[in-house]
């Protein structure tokens, strides 16, 4: 009796370490920021319960609402562009790499290498390359006769965010390529052979055999990209600070949240608004959570159909 009880409960013992760490560092902060968002704060002191006031402020009161909408748009742009790059260019590279060979293996390593670098390193590296005075990007443009395209890439409101998205893609692309490759390896060779016997061109084979079988992989990678891009913060913080410089052109939900909750470290000396910041964090969480659930559900449904 006792033994059976022990045997039934013993798995808790093995789960406990991970569960404790997860609870202390994930669940507790999540719940506490949920709690914080319902209170009024004066600097670091918690004052009275204020219901949904913080949410109302962030959603409907200027200038917070402007910033929220602006930041959300930038996150959407961040995700859309990254998604577009990885499912066209990234997928193309993966299919090419899938042909095998020594040279292509080397290429595969090269594409994956930036992904192993820390975002901070990547940020500083590109800050130097893009520097309008000393950076190589403008110099190379001038050297090949495209000097008129030289510009302050990170200081120009029109180019700042797209530039950061491209830098991010440069680092990130190795991940989707690797996952796509794994997916491509999983497609049985017989199917391609059958297609070839039926006289399919290589485009037709890709369109009707490879792509449908790779769809779940592409879907999963897209969901991961979505979660990652809607929580984007480090790269922008390293390259532009937390004020969404220049003039909110690179402001995303992450920087908006950070600036509001902890005070703008780039302007200095400002006091954080814990309540408002927590409200933004909760909204971010709800958005990412809801969208991910819908995404996973869509993929599952497709898999069942197939």
């Amino acid at each position: 009796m006792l033994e059976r009880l022990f045997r039934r409960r013993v798995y808790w013992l093995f789960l406990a370490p991970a569960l404790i760490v997860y609870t202390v560092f994930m669940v507790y902060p999540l719940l506490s920021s949920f709690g914080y968002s319902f209170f009024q704060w004066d600097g670091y002191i918690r004052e009275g319960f204020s219901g949904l006031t913080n949410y109302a402020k962030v959603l409907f009161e200027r200038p917070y609402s402007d910033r929220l909408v602006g930041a959300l748009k930038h996150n959407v742009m961040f995700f859309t562009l990254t998604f577009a790059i990885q499912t066209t260019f990234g997928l193309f590279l993966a299919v090419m790499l899938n042909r095998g060979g020594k040279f292509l293996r080397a290429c595969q390593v090269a594409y994956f290498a930036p992904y192993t670098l820390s975002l901070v390193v990547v940020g500083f590296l590109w800050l130097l390359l893009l520097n309008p005075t000393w950076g190589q990007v403008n110099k190379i443009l001038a050297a090949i006769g495209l000097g008129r395209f030289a510009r302050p890439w990170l200081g120009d409101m029109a180019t700042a965010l797209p530039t950061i998205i491209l830098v991010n893609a440069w680092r990130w692309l190795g991940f989707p390529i690797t996952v796509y490759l794994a997916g491509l390896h999983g497609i049985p060779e017989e199917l391609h052979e059958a297609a070839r016997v039926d006289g399919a061109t290589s485009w037709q084979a890709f369109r009707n055999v490879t792509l449908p079988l790779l769809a779940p992989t592409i879907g999963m990678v897209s969901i991961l990209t979505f979660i990652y891009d809607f929580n984007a913060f480090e790269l922008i913080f390293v390259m532009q600070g937390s004020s969404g410089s220049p003039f909110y052109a690179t402001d995303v939900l992450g920087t908006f949240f950070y600036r509001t909750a902890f005070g703008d470290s780039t302007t200095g000396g400002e006091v954080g608004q814990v309540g408002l910041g927590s409200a933004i964090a909760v909204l971010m969480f709800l958005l990412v959570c809801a969208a991910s659930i819908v995404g996973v559900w869509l993929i599952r449904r497709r898999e069942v159909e197939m």
Partner: protein
Amino acid sequence: MRMSRLLAACLVCTAFLAVAIGPAAGAAGKTELTFWSWRTEDIDAYGKFIKVFEAKNPDIAVKFIPYKNTEYNTILATALQGGTGPDIAQLRSYGGMEALAAAGYLVPLDATTVPGLASFPKDLLKGATNRHDGKVYGVPFAIQTIQVLYNKAVFDKLGLKEPTTWDEFLKLGATLKEKGYVPLANGGKDGWTLETLFGGVAPNFYGGNDFADAVIAGKTTFNDPRFIHALKKMLELRPYMPPSFMGVGYTDMQMMFAQEMAAMMIAGSYEVGTFERLNPNIKIGVFPVPGEKAGDGGYVAVYVDGSYGINAASKHREQALRFINFLATVEYGQMFADELSQPSAVPGVKPNHPVLAEMLSLAEKKSTPHLMLVGFRFEQPSGSTLLQTNLQGMFSDKLTAEQVAAEIQSGLAKWYKPFQK
């Protein structure tokens, strides 16, 4: 075998004894004060200051613990909130200090507990005063001034003189540009450097202290034509800023000036030490930004950089007070100014460094508060954040000067009581 085990046991025992007795014997009756700071780069200098203090107060030992500049505010606030933290802390000025004072984490100071405070001018103490109760919570340590720094060698080579009117200033820029120099190193990628530019230029066109006092008191607003005029004047500097200046960040500005690519930079007094470290041969001159006519303008924007305060939860308040009193003496101020090449906030200190001395004498002639920091950096959105981001908009041609002014006004009206009438 047995022998070695015995030996090991003995060793362990002695180790324990050493640990248990060591510090107690070493610090017989000595109180250890902890002192937090964001100046990791000044660790040696503070070591020297502390030695001077300890020589006079043999019963106190002070431990200097610096944290990373950008994380300091959070670290200090979190510690104080949890009822721990240092005995003495370096505090940010104005709004940064006020939040901690208002929460009751700091000990209020006055001339009875810190006699040295009596000699500080009122404007300086504002940097360590909680506006809600009017009490002072820190001893200011440094002031900073904003003016034009220029490369003397370049000016001499080209036969250029310090300008006395705005037109002469612009003409100076044109000449320097012609000769292949970047006239002004100032860029716009890091918004806060635009606030520094504003501090150097704008007071000369919004009418110095008249406007500053009026707007802080809520007697006028930022939509005042004087303020808008000053913003427009800033744009006249655009041709003399570096190519692609919106991509030029703070370190780029520093490098351009230190490496003598740029001949001038509108900058804070805190740059002098950095420039001389980056380029020991550089000869720096200073002048204030001139106004429309000779005699107009010439304002130097001044602000308190920070102060030293006592943690209300400190168990050694009496000893901490003695240390704070030491920090308010002219002796300390002089060491601070000479060792760190920064203007000390202690009245009566004469810096040995000629450039610093000149900056201070300019500021004594005509000074004005660095507007957003002194008056409007207390809550969100702070005047600094609004000014910095909107100036980026203006310098990128996305906003007009009028729009910048309106944005600042409506942003501040969210929390600044005098604007809410």
